[in-house]
């Protein structure tokens, strides 16, 4: 509100910072962008929405000079501009903050901020004191709470991102492009990021804010442009629109109906069977006496802030992190996971948090990735049965409706949602006893998200026990039969479906437990 107020105070709303007019771009036979228009005014946060593959990334790459548009014009502050290289785009005052950061982790915040622009003495020696002073003065002016001497690699993710934004603002930046900046931040960290953005816009910087999280759009942006299938699907003044209209524009009206008809069963399901997986008193360097059980067919959520130990619970079960004490049982049999291979043998599957780093070999085909955990199943006498492998991969591609030319497409060429489906495909057949999911829908667009929810529900219906970690509390409430709140490496409380109905309430609970440090252990009967 405060932000839009400052914009209203500006006398010329017509003074646009960026005017993109009728941009088109074709990659081979694919029309990535068709006649796209976008206007950003000074001091505005302009949200850019759309499913993966809708053209957001292409548009950003054109603005940052990575790709050249086939037709259409770009004007910066009323003057026509052409960007044939990232350097030219940067000269025009456009800075892009990518999801994967471009900082040197071994250097300090100040060194990173002035990288390549260090104040120099004779013979190329760096004036260290001046460098520190300039970095500190700049951060002070922006009001960004960063320690200039801290090594970037030692900072939490949100602070690295802030360093990145500060670095972008250090030059003569007029337009700042943020590509899904909050995808791996906790809600507190998001708050810090939004403050930094507010400080930038108050200096007259225009911001293009790309996100999948609609609630953020309402919180931070003044206007929203939605892309669908490479074309404009509408530009809205944020204050005059609502969630429903945006979702409508993103996925198209025809697809909205089935999503709306999906009703969440409020009643708790009962599981008369014994647990497929149970942990009691499991401890190691990051966990302290974790008690947890997952029933056959149950979807069990783990809610907690980043660093609470929720990911470590999955890693311990998957054999990547040794359990030092306590016992694990799989279908009633005691079992100590020793390695990932051991866990896979027991029918445990993990869809890890970072699909690019942990889940996929990006330069390999879908088929290679899907068969990776079960290579011996596709071999005879040690030799690959290529046809069997492709048959399995083709089946997985069809069942999970991965949008790709075929199983031999490189995973790198797929959109985020489709890449995530490939990670699921690795564990699809045979059905895992225990399916561990870590942030399964991060960076996945609205449509693919629904499809992934379908995949998860199907896995549970087929009898897998699902343990899911997510920062998206709405997602947990929608999917889970039970939710365990993780604080400081232990289960603070387990909630049964129906006990908590909205994310606001769950969020509140998380904060309370986190604040009190030691949550009261209150295991509720399943």
């Amino acid at each position: 509100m405060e932000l839009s107020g400052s914009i209203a105070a500006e006398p010329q709303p017509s003074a646009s910072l960026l005017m993109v007019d009728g941009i088109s771009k074709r990659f081979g036979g694919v029309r990535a962008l068709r006649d796209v228009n976008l206007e950003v005014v000074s001091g505005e946060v302009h949200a850019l929405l759309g499913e993966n593959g809708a053209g957001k990334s292409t548009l950003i790459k054109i603005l940052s000079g990575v790709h050249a548009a086939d037709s259409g014009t770009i004007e910066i502050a009323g003057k026509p501009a052409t960007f044939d290289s990232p350097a030219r785009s940067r000269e025009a005052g456009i800075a892009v903050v990518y999801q994967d950061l471009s900082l040197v982790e071994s250097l300090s915040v100040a060194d990173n901020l002035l990288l390549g622009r260090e104040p120099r003495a004779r013979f190329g020696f760096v004036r260290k004191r001046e460098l520190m002073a300039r970095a500190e003065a700049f951060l002070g002016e922006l009001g960004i709470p960063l320690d200039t001497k801290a090594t970037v690699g030692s900072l939490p993710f949100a602070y690295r991102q802030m360093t990145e934004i500060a670095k972008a603002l250090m030059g003569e930046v007029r337009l700042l492009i943020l590509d899904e900046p909050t995808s791996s931040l906790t809600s507190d960290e998001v708050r810090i990021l939004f403050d930094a953005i507010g400080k930038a816009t108050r200096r007259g910087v225009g911001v293009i804010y790309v996100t999948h999280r609609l609630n953020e759009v309402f919180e931070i942006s003044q206007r929203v442009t939605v892309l669908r299938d490479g074309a404009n699907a509408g530009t809205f003044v944020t204050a005059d629109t609502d969630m429903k209209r945006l979702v409508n524009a993103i996925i198209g009206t025809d697809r909205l109906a089935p999503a709306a008809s999906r009703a969440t069963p409020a009643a708790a399901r009962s599981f008369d069977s014994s647990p497929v997986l149970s942990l009691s008193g499991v401890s190691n360097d990051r966990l302290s006496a974790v008690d947890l059980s997952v029933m056959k067919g149950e979807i069990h959520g783990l809610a907690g802030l980043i660093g609470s130990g929720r990911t470590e619970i999955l890693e311990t079960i998957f054999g990547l992190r040794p359990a030092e004490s306590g016992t694990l049982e799989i279908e009633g049999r005691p079992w100590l996971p020793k390695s990932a291979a051991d866990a896979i043998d027991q029918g445990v599957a993990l869809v890890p948090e970072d699909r690019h780093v942990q889940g996929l070999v990006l330069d390999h085909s879908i088929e290679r990735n899907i068969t990776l955990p079960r290579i011996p199943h596709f071999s005879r006498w040690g030799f690959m049965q290529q046809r069997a492998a492709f048959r399995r991969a083709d089946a997985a591609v069809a069942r999970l409706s991965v949008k790709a030319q075929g199983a031999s497409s490189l995973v790198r060429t797929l959109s985020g949602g489709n890449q995530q489906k490939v990670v699921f495909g690795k564990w699809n057949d045979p059905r895992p006893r225990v399916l561990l999911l870590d942030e399964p829908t991060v960076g996945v667009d609205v449509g693919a998200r629904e499809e992934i929810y379908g995949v998860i529900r199907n896995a549970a219906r087929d009898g897998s026990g699902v343990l899911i970690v997510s920062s998206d509390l709405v997602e947990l409430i929608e999917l889970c039969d039970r939710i365990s709140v993780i604080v400081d490496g232990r289960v603070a409380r387990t909630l049964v479906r129906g006990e908590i109905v909205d994310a606001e309430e769950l969020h509140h609970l998380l904060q309370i437990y986190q604040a009190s440090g030691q949550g009261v252990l209150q295991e509720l009967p399943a």
Partner: protein
Amino acid sequence: MTELTAPNVVASSTRSDRRRKLLHNLLRGERPYMLYIAFVVLLVVFSLSSPWFLSVDNFLNIGRQTTLVSIIAVGMTFVIIARQIDLSVASTLALSGMAAALAMSQISNSWIVGAIAGLGTGALVGLLNGILTTQLSIPSFLVTLGSLSMARGLAMMVTNTKPVIITNETYFAIFGEGTFLGIPVPIAWTLVAMIVGILLLHYNVFGRRIYAVGGNPTAALYSGINTKWVTTAAFVLTGALAGLAALVLSARSHAARPDVVQGMELDVIAAVILGGCSLFGGRGYILGTLFGSLIIGTLNNGLVLLGVSSPMQLVIKGAIIVAAVAFTKR
């Protein structure tokens, strides 16, 4: 009629698809055909500039001269695809040759004993390289820089730098001087190494794992692959192939010498990289490696035939390797 022909059309198209895929697998790898063009250009240039170059004898000569590099390069392809490097191969060859010759002179003058000693020593050095790299998490560049020095030192220590004479005629015939189906055995052994390499890398489960470990070690680990074991196996294979190369060399010269092929690891690595392997792992193919090593062998041979002085040969060879890699880069 149409109903009869239609399935045939489908069948033949899938068969030709499969053939195309096979060709693609073997020849192209990840890169365009620049490698083969470069090789042909080299052949044409040398044929035009030297009257002796274009002859069967000379090609057999090139084949013989490149055997050592080609055999070891097969193993190095696995190592480099797995994001590692092995600098110790030339020293391993020297040590393996000494082990083979000493085993035959000290234990029993049988070619089998010599072969086991040579291959075993090579594999053992590879095993140590692999274990140190994976278990102690030391970069393989450093581990094998150390074993380069240690293996060479050991080879020199055992006889106080004296060569060991080999007298076993069968050994000479099998590894050095005989022919197999009309092919000189050194070339036959190269072909064996190539075929085993192609089967292992492109058709075997092991190859899948090597590519995955090199393409993304974390994802491979999360998929339950024993990345340490797979990496170690690549080093063992390379060591064993260095052992095979040692057998070929010692059988050809009727002796094992501790100071042979110093610096050859660079030719091996150059061959693999020329052949289209990525130093960043996850990419590469055996036939590319063969052509890489043929290019280096042809260069050596052609420059000698042209009467280029040996210091100048080194300069030209180095420049051409850098130019070729720059040229074939995507």
